[in-house]
């Protein structure tokens, strides 16, 4: 099947629906957890995972104070106690800041202020997150307001209703419109794979999002189960690989939701490494959407240095 969509200038963008074999994906996705990694390399991966993290809070109960607290954690992930304990270890490398914090548009100004000068980005879930069930005009206003408030990155949701109804042109047009509304901000397109039903649809949605101008494609809002899984992530990485093979353009990937342990993060990074290669092993092209993951990675970093675990209260909640 060829899905015909047209770009701004009315040029046809034929997107071939690439079939995905779900059984084969299960097998391959399970494989990446079986690699064993050198201790030094593991430590590098933990540091990289922190630098790839989009620390996220997306609750109705979010307040400016809550966001400020999370921003502090984003800049300095290790608590003062842990930092002190770590700094006594010979050869210890300082814990880096995370890539970004991810908040609702209304809270962007607070995050921007709290992160000023830190190098940590502000990402915002615009487009009537998480359902996207609002008019395009409303969603675009949402995006423009977030960008105007200083968001560096916009995490949009695709119109799953339109996608599942087969209105691919509409899905494409809306993504392209959001991209335009983003201006200089980077666009991450959330497919909400937990609502798409099949891996074939995940692949098609990935290809449409990439064709319509996504800088990153992202699995999930975190509000729908299942969120990121190794299987959907692998399918999306394969879409990115095919796009790179055809155009030489590198699209980024963000699995979000459900990645809680350092061990899981390593499995995702091995998958990235074996599917797209070392060029993608950078925060510019890969992010983890997570909140619980950070403390477990810190826990494992301490363990890599010392061979034991730091006590639990040594990690700050946020």
């Amino acid at each position: 099947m060829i899905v015909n969509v047209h770009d701004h200038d009315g040029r046809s963008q034929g997107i071939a629906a690439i079939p995905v074999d779900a059984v084969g994906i299960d097998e391959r996705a399970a494989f990446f957890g079986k690699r064993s990694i050198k201790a030094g390399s593991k430590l590098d991966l933990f540091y990289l995972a922190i630098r790839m993290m989009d620390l996220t809070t997306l609750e109705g109960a979010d307040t400016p104070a809550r966001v400020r607290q999370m921003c502090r954690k984003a800049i300095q992930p290790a608590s003062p106690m842990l930092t002190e304990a770590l700094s006594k270890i010979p050869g210890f490398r300082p814990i880096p800041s995370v890539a970004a914090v991810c908040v609702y548009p209304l809270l962007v100004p607070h995050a921007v202020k709290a992160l000023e000068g830190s190098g940590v980005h502000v990402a915002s879930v615009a487009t009537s997150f998480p359902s996207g069930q609002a008019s395009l005009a409303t969603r675009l206003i949402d995006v423009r307001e977030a960008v105007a408030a200083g968001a560096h990155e916009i995490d949009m949701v695709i119109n799953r209703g339109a996608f599942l109804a087969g209105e691919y042109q509409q899905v494409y047009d809306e993504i392209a419109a959001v991209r335009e509304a983003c201006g200089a901000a980077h666009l991450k397109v959330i497919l909400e794979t937990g609502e798409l039903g099949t891996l074939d649809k995940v692949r098609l949605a990935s290809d449409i999002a990439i064709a319509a101008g996504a800088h990153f494609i992202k699995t999930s809002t975190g509000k729908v189960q299942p969120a990121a899984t190794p299987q959907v992530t692998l399918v999306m990485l394969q879409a990115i690989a095919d796009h790179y093979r055809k155009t030489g353009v590198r699209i980024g990937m963000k699995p979000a939701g459900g990645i809680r342990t350092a061990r899981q993060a390593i499995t995702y990074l091995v998958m990235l490494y074996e599917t797209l290669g070392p060029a993608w092993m950078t925060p510019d092209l890969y992010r983890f959407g997570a909140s619980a993951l950070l403390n477990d990675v810190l826990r494992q970093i301490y363990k890599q240095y010392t061979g034991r675990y730091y006590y639990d209260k040594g990690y700050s909640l946020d």
Partner: protein
Amino acid sequence: MTEHLAHASASPATNGHPRDPAPAPGGLVIDYAPSIESDKIVQIPARHQLYIGGKWTQPAAGRYFDSINPATNQVLSEIAEADASDVDAAVRAARRSYDRTWSKLSGRERGRYLFRIARLIQERSRELAVLETIDNGKPIRESRDVDLPLVAAHFFYYAGWADKLEYALPGRKVGPIGVAGQIIPWNFPLLMAAWKIAPALACGNTVVLKPAEQTPLTALKLMEIFEEAGLPPGVVNLVTGAGEAGAALVAHPGVDKIAFTGSTEVGKIIARSVAGSGKKLTLELGGKSAHIVFEDAAIDQAVEGVINGIYFNQGHVCCAGSRLLLEESVSGVFLDKLKVRMRQLRVGNPLDKNTDIGAINSIGELDKIKRLIELGKQEGSSYFEPEEIKLPQAGNFLRPCFFSDVASSHTLCRVEVFGPVLTVSTFRTPAEAVAKANDTPYGLAAGIWSEKGSKIHKVASGLRAGVIWANTYNQFDPTSPFGGYGESGYGREGGRHGLLPYLEILG
């Protein structure tokens, strides 16, 4: 915007703008650690004897040969070399045990022994997997995750049949045949022993097993497990040795049935030798199996399937998907992806859990494969091997490779290489794919990749192959019969069909 992103990554390995079409410098490279499975779990005795009538027995001529670790080419153990008189003793022990004990037991009793054996294999599976890897050269990941689970599963499966044989052929009365002589190859040593022994015992036969001279260690270990399970003496006897012992077993008048897995060349000799003797015979021989990929396949998964089809177990697989047939419209993309994927393969120490491709089983085998690769190059098809794959200094290692633009008349497209060598040809229509797939004297297995179910059924019905996999490859299960057409042999192993070669129809 680029500035934002440069901020975000504190590392010098920043790639700049993600949409920058220029090639980005390399990001982080992952260093895989050698993760060596400890070999402490296995104790390999310096010398192994024959196992006859429940006793470890010295060979009559007092001769021994070496079993070699193919990853290092060091000697693992001395193995007794059986001659005709040893084989005779083993066959007589099997006959005694058949007459006095095993054929008299109820099916339920035989099943209890087999269940016990299966459980002991599970309990000792790590030890057996390590030993198999040391002796054979296959990656520990495969011996641990594929061979050993299947070995136990075969014993469990046929244990279940032992007291249900009256349902194997509804309406017919069946009984055991007698003494089975079983000769097995070196590529799946323990698994092939299980394929042979489990149905034979379930049906009430006794066994003389001859493992391959390259890889006898796990079969010898299996005899210990049989002892531990309390299997009566003489029910399974083991004679180690090379062609001489095998020939003596095949020619022995006291043997009622021969089961052989190995090369087509030896299979033909056995068939001639057995002709007119009244012995039953099953042969599981070579293959040159076609792996057909249509343009409507899930290409990324098909690449995985093709990799698994040919490079699994170093390509030492009788049903290996060694002839890739690609629909011309996707051949370019497919080969690009295949190359990318092959570069990820890790060749090396078979005991390393990160190893994808282990050691070629012997120096002789390595030389044979290398000669065939040279021949392929001389015949002028284009050759690819991922040169960045590092090979260990010692041991028998070879990079995976393929030849593309191969015609059916090329030697490599016709002979069984039995190594990590793939040939690639293209086709234009399903009819052409079927014709090319069948253009071989063999007929063991085939694979079809298409997301269109009706096409799979249509193509499968045209293929002359004993096993056909759709959208997967090299999947094995004790419930499923396995065997070939043409020069791939006759008879089936596995499933209900696998009982029939070990049963006499009594009425």
